[in-house]
């Protein structure tokens, strides 16, 4: 019997030896394979729960890490979440819903993994500290941002960009409908998934491609595109400030049963011949369609490109963006329509802001700048972003000429509602028909015209003409006043 007991014990030892072998394999020999297995999310979820840097606007946090729970020691919180949602995006701490916006595009800086923070990481390693991310200080002005956000009524799809034309710094950038990023950043997985699903079903919010909002929404620009035509015309040498443009009530095309009508809203019908000033002030269609047909598709397309349409906005935006386009291979009616910002011309609100900024800044387009400073947790500056020219859109002379005419649009044209007492305001409005009786209403302008400090661009999508007019120029006025402290 005792021998059998000893044998049974030996069998037990063999079983335990197998266990030691298995444990050693998993934890030592095969550990690397297991750690790098694509199904393994441990390292990811661990990093997800680390503290991230804070995103600030005017010294106030708009995205910050706060205490989480046992499972995840820190989570993201967004004070005034909806106001800044288009900028910050959200960061799903438990990793279940990914991340968007600046949380995504500045992830390496916010986690401390960027190249500039390499030395910090080494130091933290030796000090045994948790890696700390940088704080991202944006160029946003909370006062203007909140004002702009409030100017778009709930239920309306709209976009506002407020930018400094001389530096490219973005003071405010809002879009509606918005959402509260806190709902998606919650640690409760099912609540996060439900919130995301609800957002995915909301018209005007596109979370997947990160291209909703002023940097990504692609809209037909309507008449604000006439600024491009004007620049192309003046640069071509065929036109000058005194040119007289044919202004028929409608434009016909040989062999095609299509007529391009003039804009019905202004005074266009009063003249069959128009100056640039009159055509811009009343946003007449046929003079600019005529210019486009005269100059040809390439000239207009090149100028659109020079103003940034269909182009990248430079490396200081730190947000995903849409590129827009000016279509090519157009027949005559299509070119005519494209010249007035219809047909397949697509732009983002930010691009129109950049276009206007270029005119305000003597033809030089600055890189739109959303991040001012990258600061280490010990308040040391890691990177200070300097204003940089992105491209030259047009000559100073042409820019100045368009500037003058845009002042006329406010003084005695369609943008009269944007006038600020005591300040020279330059602007251009636009109405793009969507084909369903509704329009995109645009406003883009700057002030003061003789020393531009601020560019305001407003785009309201899918509204009738009256609502569009009401939500553009008068709101621009409020923004000009707020920025210029009037």
């Amino acid at each position, binding site marked *: 019997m005792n021998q059998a007991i000893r044998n049974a014990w030996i069998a037990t030892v063999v079983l*335990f030896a197998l*266990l030691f072998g298995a*444990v050693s394999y*998993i*934890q030592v020999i095969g550990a690397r394979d297991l750690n790098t297995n694509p*199904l393994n999310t*441990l390292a990811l979820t661990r990093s997800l729960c680390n503290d991230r840097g804070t995103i600030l606007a005017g010294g106030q946090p708009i995205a910050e890490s706060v205490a989480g729970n046992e*499972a995840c020691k820190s989570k993201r919180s967004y004070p005034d979440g909806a106001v800044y949602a288009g900028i910050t995006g959200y960061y799903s701490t438990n990793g279940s819903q990914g991340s968007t916006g600046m949380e995504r595009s500045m992830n390496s800086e916010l986690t401390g993994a960027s190249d500039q923070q390499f030395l910090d990481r080494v130091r933290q390693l030796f000090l045994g500290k948790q890696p700390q991310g940088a704080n991202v200080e944006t160029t946003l002005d909370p006062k203007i941002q909140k004002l702009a956000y409030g100017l778009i009524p709930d239920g309306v799809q709209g976009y506002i960009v407020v930018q400094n034309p001389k530096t490219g710094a973005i003071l405010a950038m809002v879009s509606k409908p918005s959402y509260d990023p806190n709902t998606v950043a919650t640690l409760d997985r099912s609540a996060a998934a439900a919130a995301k699903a609800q957002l995915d079903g909301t018209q005007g919010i596109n979370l997947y491609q990160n291209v909703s909002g002023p940097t990504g929404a692609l809209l037909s620009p309507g008449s604000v595109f006439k600024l491009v035509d004007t620049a192309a015309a003046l640069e071509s040498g065929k036109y000058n400030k005194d040119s007289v443009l044919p202004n028929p009530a409608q434009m016909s095309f040989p062999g095609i049963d299509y007529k391009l009508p003039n804009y019905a809203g202004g005074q266009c019908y009063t003249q069959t011949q128009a100056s640039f000033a009159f055509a811009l002030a009343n946003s007449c269609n046929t003079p600019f369609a005529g210019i486009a047909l005269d100059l040809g598709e390439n000239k207009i397309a090149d100028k659109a490109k020079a103003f940034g349409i269909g182009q990248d906005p430079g490396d200081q935006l730190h947000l995903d963006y849409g590129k827009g386009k000016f279509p090519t291979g157009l027949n005559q009616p299509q070119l005519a329509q494209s010249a007035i910002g219809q047909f397949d011309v697509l732009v983002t609100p930010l691009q129109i802001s950049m276009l206007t900024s270029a005119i305000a800044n003597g033809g030089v387009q600055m890189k739109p700048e959303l991040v001012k400073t990258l600061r280490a947790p010990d308040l040391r500056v890691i990177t200070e972003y300097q204003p940089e020219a992105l491209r030259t859109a047009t000559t100073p002379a042409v820019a100045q000429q368009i500037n003058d005419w845009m002042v006329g649009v406010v003084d005695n044209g369609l943008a009269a509602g944007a006038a600020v007492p005591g300040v020279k305001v330059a602007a251009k409005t636009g109405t793009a028909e969507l084909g369903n009786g509704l329009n995109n209403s645009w406003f883009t302008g700057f002030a003061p015209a003789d020393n531009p400090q601020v560019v305001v661009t407003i785009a309201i999508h899918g509204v009738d003409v009256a609502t569009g007019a009401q939500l553009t120029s008068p709101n621009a006025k409020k923004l000009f006043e707020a920025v210029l402290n009037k």
Partner: protein
Amino acid sequence: MSTALTDSVVVKPRRNIELVLLVLALLVGIGASVLSSVNNPGSLNGSFWFQSSLLAVASLAMHITLRIRAQYADPFILPVAVALNGLGLAMIHRLDGSKGTAGDNQLRWTLIAVACTIVLIWVLRDHRRLRGFTYISLAVSAVLLVLPMVPGLTAGDINGAQLWIQIGPFTFQPAEIAKITLAIFFAGYLSVNRDLILLAGRKIGPLQLPRFRDMGPMLAAWAVSIGILVLQRDMGTSFMFFSLFMVMIYVATGRVSWVVIGLILIAVAGTVAAQLFTHVKFRMESWYDAFDPVIYNRDPGGSSQIVNGLFGMADGGIFGTGLGQGQPYLVPYANSDMIIASFGEELGLIGLAGMILLYLLLITRGFRAALGARDSFGKLMGVGLSFVMAVQCFVVIGGVTRLIPLTGLTTPFLAAGGSSLLANWIVVGLLLMISNTARGPVDTSPLHHGDDDSAGASAPPSGDTAPIRDTHVTQEVS
């Protein structure tokens, strides 16, 4: 040692060694709790020290009981059990966070289990008295195994198996207790009938076949195992019972042929089960194709639990992430079925290997007690109970480490679960009693009780001359 003792060895109770080891064991368990709490503010609350002292008091009560009732009991068994139980408590508390109640529940059951064991040792005194309960144990086993299928008592399907009963708010796994009563029955039956089984019967080739009626219990055991597999759908429990029976009949008869036949029967049953039952088939697939994304994502029956357990252990590496600093809670059943993976992640290979060694030590002391027992009933019961614990460890740890398919057995002393704790503490109590008679002097007179000088506060007079209280000669000492 003195030359006068060449053919006789003095038996020392060694209760002081046990006390020292017990303090170490408590330090391990409570220290683990403190460590895991450091990283989880809120869990080191006011009740923590109260709870820790409860564990200490329970362990010391057990120790004192041994001093009075079983002073020659093996001094390593109790400290090892306390250390494992304490580690389990620490991990379960740690996984609870601030909200869970599993840790408090586990502590409650620890106290109940230790109290039951103390009562058992106090009342029973000698394991041999259990021989009188041979057939009662069989009846109790049968009842226990049937209970989970009784309407009104059954807790229904839990994770695909029907192993639990529910009384009020408590769920209980009767099979855990049944492994003890079955061990008692087999030990009683085989110690009486082993000669018959051995000698009667025909010999065919190299195999000595027993008479059919002597085979009865074995076939019954096999039927019970298959019944559990089919009716209660649990491979692990089925395998555990069958192993218990096999090792006991092997030790009783010394015939390897039984083991061979048994292994064949298991293989046949397992293969058939894998064909017939989807849950068994799923378990097999989750084992050999664990990393296949289709199987990984399958629900129910996917391999994500075992695979995430492996990821956790790999993440822990050699040194572990440190208690409270890993993410073992990402794995379902991190505090019960997968608690080994939780320890692997946070304590690393070093910690986990240490814990497996503790198991091996505990089981080895059980075997040692069986080896030393002077009665075949004690030998058989000691081997059965020790081996069944070894099988349990192997099935659980092997399952978690993907050595074998994962089944739902509990990890002795560690896993959250009252019935398992109670059963394993009773096993410890029985092993302690067996070791007490094994190591103690052969003495047919009533045992002397009370504290003796070698175990008391006063140290032995000198290091190498132990006080001689008892001149009975024993053959086996440990």
